[in-house]
């Protein structure tokens, strides 16, 4: 394994008196799939929201290793700046631009590249050639991701009209169109049928290895409840419970960890009765 792409150090997030995430540390290796698992309310999504800038952490550090140069401290950046630094995310409850077509969704994701190509859109206003080229490149990129996610036939349909599984894939394609270095997926398999889950697992492996639509391998951080997927594709698993990290390591090792079994199946009640 190479150096970590994301280092989480003593991440703490408090909401008033409630400590949702308590001094959690872990690393996500570059070019690997890291899964974040844990029972409901363990703080997984809170960790995600801290990494992607939707929450400002109460304490701790989040370091993203860029392609070159010094690491970026994500906890000091605003959410859109984090996305620009190369962290893309999807949402637990799908957030697509429902009234825009599938293709438009993917073009919005390439907003930055398109805006830069046109000097703040002023060149685009007057139909500059540079903008036309940039837009064609953006459409090509969108099409290659639509092919990779098997959505090309629906490119001109409104995103809101797609079936649920297709919306999940579109959200991943949209996140990938931003050209991220780290892709954060919040329960991508929720609500999928077994066949769709298998396709999703294959897609995630292809994204990790750079076989999907872009040749660049992309590291993935994944929250998932479907243990079949987690154990099948993850290179590394981090387990949270009640806001604390209780285990981390290879899938097989984590599965055998007594703390993890206790967290998922309930601890032996008799030990806790004594005052």
């Amino acid at each position: 394994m190479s150096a970590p792409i994301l280092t989480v150090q003593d991440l703490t997030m408090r909401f008033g008196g409630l400590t949702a995430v308590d001094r959690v540390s872990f690393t996500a290796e570059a070019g690997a799939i890291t899964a974040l698992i844990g029972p409901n309310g363990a703080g997984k999504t809170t960790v995600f929201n801290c990494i992607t800038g939707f929450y400002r952490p109460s304490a701790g550090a989040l370091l993203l290793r860029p392609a070159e140069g010094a690491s970026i401290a994500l906890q000091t950046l605003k959410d859109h700046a984090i996305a620009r630094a190369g962290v893309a995310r999807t949402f637990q409850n799908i957030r697509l631009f429902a009234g825009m077509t599938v293709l438009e969704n993917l073009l919005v994701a390439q907003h930055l590249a398109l805006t830069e190509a046109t000097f703040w859109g002023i060149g685009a206003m007057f139909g500059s050639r540079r903008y036309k080229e940039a837009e064609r490149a953006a459409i090509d990129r969108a099409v290659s991701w639509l092919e990779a996610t098997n959505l090309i036939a629906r490119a001109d349909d409104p995103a809101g009209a797609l079936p649920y599984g297709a919306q999940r894939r579109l959200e991943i394609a949209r996140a990938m169109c931003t050209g991220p270095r780290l892709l954060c997926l919040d329960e991508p398999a929720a609500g999928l049928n077994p066949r769709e889950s298998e396709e999703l697992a294959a897609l995630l492996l292809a994204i990790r290895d750079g076989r999907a639509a872009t040749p660049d391998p992309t590291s993935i951080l994944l929250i998932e409840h479907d243990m079949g997927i987690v154990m099948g594709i993850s290179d590394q698993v981090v387990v949270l419970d009640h806001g604390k990290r209780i285990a981390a390591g290879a899938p097989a090792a984590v599965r055998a960890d007594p703390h993890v079994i206790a967290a998922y199946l309930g601890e032996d009640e008799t030990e806790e009765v004594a005052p």
Partner: protein
Amino acid sequence: MSQPRKGMAAALRDAALATAVAFGLFVIMVGLRTDVAPSGALFLRTRWPDVALLCGLVFAGRLVMSLWQARPRAPAAPKLGGTMQRAGRALGPALLAAALLLPFTPGIGRYELDLGILVLTYIMLGWGLNIVVGLAGLLDLGYVAFYAVGAYSYALLAQAFGLGFWVCLPLAGILAAFWGILLGFPVLRLRGDYLAIVTLAFGEIIRIVLLNWTDLTGGPNGIGGIPRPSFFGLPFNMSGEPGTFAGFFGLEPDPVHRVIFLYYLILALALLTNWVSVRLRRQPIGRAWEALREDEIACRALGINVTTTKLTAFALGAMFGGFAGAFFATRQGFISPESFTFIESAIILAIVVLGGLGSQLGVAIAALVMIGGFELFRDLEEWRMLVFGTAMVVIMVVKPRGLVGSRTPTVALGERRAIGSEHVQEGRG
């Protein structure tokens, strides 16, 4: 067979309930009236037949509406949508051609041209507000403030520095855009209803400042003697000298020349607004506005700076409001805070909502229907508002998302197909 009967019973029950509510209201508001008797004493007059008539109207209206809404839906809706779309594509150019030829159509006099100028002003304002409300999904109830800023900018700049209309027009737009950004900053964090309240307050603040800052704005007396526009340096006047419009072109001096010029001026300004919005919609910034309307959180996750995106929408919308304001000032020659009350904002917003959020053609038709229709019903006198209100209610019942509720995609691999209003979000600020 039992299904329609059940629907009928429900509709009757519904209509009876509405009638009961109407009765409760009208029995006091219409049925009882205090009048002065010949002796000078007050006495109570009753008008039960009027109450009965009104309740009957409510019953019939509500019954028709329920039955209409419960009618079996035609399954061939998409095909109908296709023909509508084709008709719509032809309608835009047809309206444009009619607008271009209007001054030279026989039977069109000064009154019709003035009405045309008024309608075009509202079309332009509607298109300007459409950027903010329709595309970016930010509910702005104080749009008239930018109209006022534009009008006063032109009036004050022209009077204090003697600047001409063509210099003041961009300045008025820039100043209005500046105020748009100024309003944008504090309200960036607000959404939906809260945003609406603050923009409403902003509109009122501007009006009250104009009303009370007597030294600068003349207060309630307004500003008079605003320079009228010239035809690129050639003034319109009746003398017919070589330095005037009529003299230069060798025409008989006629006051209608200026009206025709003003008509084409506002038509050009409105078309500029339309051109910019249509172009921008296909640019990254326009797509970002629409994405913002659809889902702000997803925008943030994609690296779109929500702050600047919202501010550009406010600034551009305000700029076109400012242009329209400068035009208004030069057309009227006199402005006062009375022209910039909340009802103006409400009318512009109603045009955008009735036309269909984000639809250029819908807004134009709605402005034509609302402003033109309002003039058409002038003979009805005090019933005008009632007819007008009823018409608006009918449009909203029949087309809840405005005259043109569908959205045309900005880009497509194949054929561009309109997106039904059931998918398009209305924006929550």
